[in-house]
């Protein structure tokens, strides 16, 4: 089968496994080895070699058999605005809710959603019920992943503390033996600074990072939204930037101290959302500290004014020169300029850390571009309607975002704010680097170089950058329909995701061709 620019199909080659999506007359089903797939004249992005340009790929028997870069006449008509091939994405931060909250998501539905988003590897957070604080829970997640039939690689972080209670260390060594990528009490910070110091030392000894949700719980008690203009007008209890800055500051201080005893101690700060906390990370990196961090698509693209009913992208809330309106960092006023178009207090916007100002979003973007932020992680947090169809202040925190991350980043690319190659790197080599830098990589393939490498198992995503798709309850494969983008068209329809040589997702419309 030979395919050009968007007309995709896997109708030849056939399946090697039993599962096959209903309605598909031929071709492999989810989880089947992709026996033959050729794509002519697409835009290839290889973040490992740093190369992007027109090219062709061939997958045979699940292996990326050839990657050909086109030049001259052959390359004509191929642009980076059409069909794009990139290595499969790796999400450092997702919640698949199993075990314990299967109404919100399961490993199977989460993996399907991930593949729809272009992801071939995901790292799950341990705030399940029971918490992933001992290897038995990890085994349970692994067996659910295997049973799902999805080839998406499901990895996990173990809890820092037993039961995520913040009092005693979890079974860290046993979890390391079981193959966790590191440790996090995500959903909460590691509550005690004293335990954090022990955790950094012990995890460092095991060659694994601590992944921290940075929040000073005293400063944020009862908080509903970022403390600022919007929260003041809406009468929402404020989550001050200081709540994150203080926690990041604490963690960097503890890391500095821990490194004196255990040079392998490492800290990864997840979903950093404020300009000032990112500046702390920037300075820590400049000092050579082993700190990494990620930012989320929603903190890059949405702002607190969305809670008031605005739906413009974060960069559109700044002045036309892309800067805040005044030295205080204020964005344009949504109450003054007609930006309020949606019902306020939409609970899909309740997330922790909260959506912040346009200036903070711009700082997240600047951090992503200058490398202060190593990766974009989704913090995919699906919730049931029961947990979201309530008063704003009573809604569960979280955005279902693993299927829209690519589209949000492409909106940034389309707006000229982010180079395409940087966006792809932030979804591939960036997160792989965070995991690889920990030193203990044998347990996982997530840290493998995520490039378009001939002879390696095919692990890639094909998407059409200019094909916009409608985010809707029906189009999201996640059980979590809690997306602020519902009803909106976003760029970058994913046509095909191949994980470890096996079919992870195929767009239904591409299937028909």
């Amino acid at each position, binding site marked *: 089968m030979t395919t050009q620019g968007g007309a995709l199909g896997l109708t030849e080659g056939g399946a090697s496994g039993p599962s096959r999506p209903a309605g598909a007359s031929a071709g492999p089903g989810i989880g089947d080895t992709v026996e033959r797939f050729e794509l002519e004249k697409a835009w290839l992005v290889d973040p490992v070699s740093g190369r992007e340009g027109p090219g062709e790929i061939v997958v045979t028997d699940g292996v990326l058999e050839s990657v050909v870069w086109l030049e001259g006449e052959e390359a004509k008509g191929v642009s980076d605005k059409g069909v794009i091939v990139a290595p499969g994405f790796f999400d450092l931060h997702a919640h698949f809710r199993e075990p314990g909250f299967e109404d919100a998501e399961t490993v199977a539905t989460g993996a399907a959603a991930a593949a729809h988003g272009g992801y071939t590897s995901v790292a799950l957070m341990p705030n399940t019920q029971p918490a992933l604080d001992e290897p038995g829970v990890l085994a349970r997640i692994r067996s659910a992943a295997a049973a799902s039939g999805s080839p998406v690689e499901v990895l996990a972080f173990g809890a820092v503390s037993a039961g995520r209670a913040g009092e005693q260390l979890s079974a860290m060594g046993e979890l390391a033996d079981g193959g966790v990528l590191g440790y996090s009490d995500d959903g909460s910070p590691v509550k005690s600074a004293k335990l954090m110091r022990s955790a950094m030392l012990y995890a460092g000894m095991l060659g694994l990072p601590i992944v921290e949700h940075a929040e000073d719980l005293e400063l944020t008690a009862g908080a509903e939204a970022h*403390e*600022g203009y919007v929260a003041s*007008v809406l009468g929402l209890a404020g989550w001050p930037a200081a709540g994150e800055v203080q926690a990041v500051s604490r963690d960097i201080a503890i890391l500095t101290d821990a490194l004196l005893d255990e040079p392998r101690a490492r800290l990864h700060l997840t979903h950093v959302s404020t300009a000032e906390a990112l500046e702390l990370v920037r300075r820590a990196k400049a000092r050579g500290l082993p700190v990494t961090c990620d930012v989320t698509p929603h903190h890059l693209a949405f702002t607190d004014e969305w809670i008031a009913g605005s739906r413009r992208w974060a960069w559109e809330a700044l002045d036309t020169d892309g800067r805040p309106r005044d030295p205080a960092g*204020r964005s344009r006023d*949504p109450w003054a300029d007609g930006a309020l178009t*949606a019902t306020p207090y939409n609970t899909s916007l309740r997330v922790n850390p909260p959506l912040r100002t346009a200036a903070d979003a711009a700082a997240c973007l600047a951090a992503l571009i200058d490398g202060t932020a190593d990766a974009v992680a989704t913090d995919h947090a699906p919730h049931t309607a029961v947990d979201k169809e309530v008063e704003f202040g009573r809604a569960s925190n979280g955005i279902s975002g693993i299927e829209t991350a690519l589209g949000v980043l492409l909106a940034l690319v389309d707006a000229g704010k982010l180079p395409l190659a940087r966006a792809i790197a932030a979804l591939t080599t960036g997160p792989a680097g965070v995991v690889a830098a920990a030193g203990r990589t044998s347990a996982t393939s997530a840290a493998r170089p995520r490039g378009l490498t001939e002879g390696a198992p095919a692990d890639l995503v094909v998407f059409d950058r200019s094909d916009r798709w409608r985010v809707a309850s029906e189009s999201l494969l996640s059980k979590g329909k809690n997306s602020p983008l519902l009803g909106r068209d976003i760029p970058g329809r994913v046509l095909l995701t191949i994980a470890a040589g096996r079919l992870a997702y195929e767009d239904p419309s591409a299937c028909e061709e």
Partner: protein
Amino acid sequence: MTTVASAATGVPATGIPAAAWHHRHLIDLDVVTWPEIELIMRTTEEMKHVLARPIRKVPALNGRRVTTLFYEASTRTRVSFETAARNLSADVVSVSTATSSVTKGESLVDTIRTLEALGAEILVLRHSVSGAPYLAAEIFGGHVLNGGDGWHAHPTQALLDLYTMREHIPGGDLHGRKVAIVGDILHSRVARSNIWSLTAAGADLWLCGPATLLRGMDRWAGAWAGGAIPGHGRFNVTSDIDAALRDADVVMGLRIQRERMSSGLLPSLREYSARFQLNAERMSLAKPDAIVMHPGPMNEGVEIAPDVATSGRSVITDQVTNGVAVRMALLYLLAGSHDAAYEPAHEGAR
């Protein structure tokens, strides 16, 4: 003199076409234009005439069903709404959390669907969580009238405040008149709704209280400092009580709650009173004919001295009376807007 409804037919005969009112719900004043506020003021005037009659009842809402759903303890606001509805001959159903399935864990959404199935047409909602009426408006097929939500909004209070001020300010025009609101601004939905209406009225608005109870308000005032919002003026935020009261035309006190001490926002009620209480000495800074207001319930001796609360300057009981008239006006206008095309609960910027 015009009347709201002819007693004979029950048909509105006011010269106020119901069609002039375009909002299906009233949740906050941010989306209400100044002409619409003036319409409310005129309609309230009509309702005041009704209240002046020996029999304070007109058939304007005869057979219409008004349900009050209160998730917070409230006596005066609930009684005021229910009195207003009955004055218009509406059927009133009263639901409060102490007696409903809410205590069994029923969600707001389910409760509202149930009340709608039971025939509710106009829902008056009081809720402790900011923004709750927008959720109600999304699922309720009738009209939602906000009776106060969290720290966010209390539009009928702000409108009765405005009406009361206009009654007492010579000429009835607040333009350039200094209004000082003193107390716990941070947690006050009354203050927030008053910001929209009083800046739209052109008043010189001052918000005053201890710095801990003004959190975030400076950022709001700063955002508006350049006169950003069309139709709204800037306002001032200060902890300097003397500056706030000096030459004020209107002084409004807000309730100070005891839990502000336990949550570390205030050292003591004694210290609050010493620095911010509206007492006779401080009131001498205001204009001699300045009026004193309070949305109630009052802590006399804390945020306001008893002699100030009961002085000749106090219009606090007028606020209560006007509250019924304003709520009659809003029930009347909302009920008449039922033919209006659907509008989103929040229509965006003016």
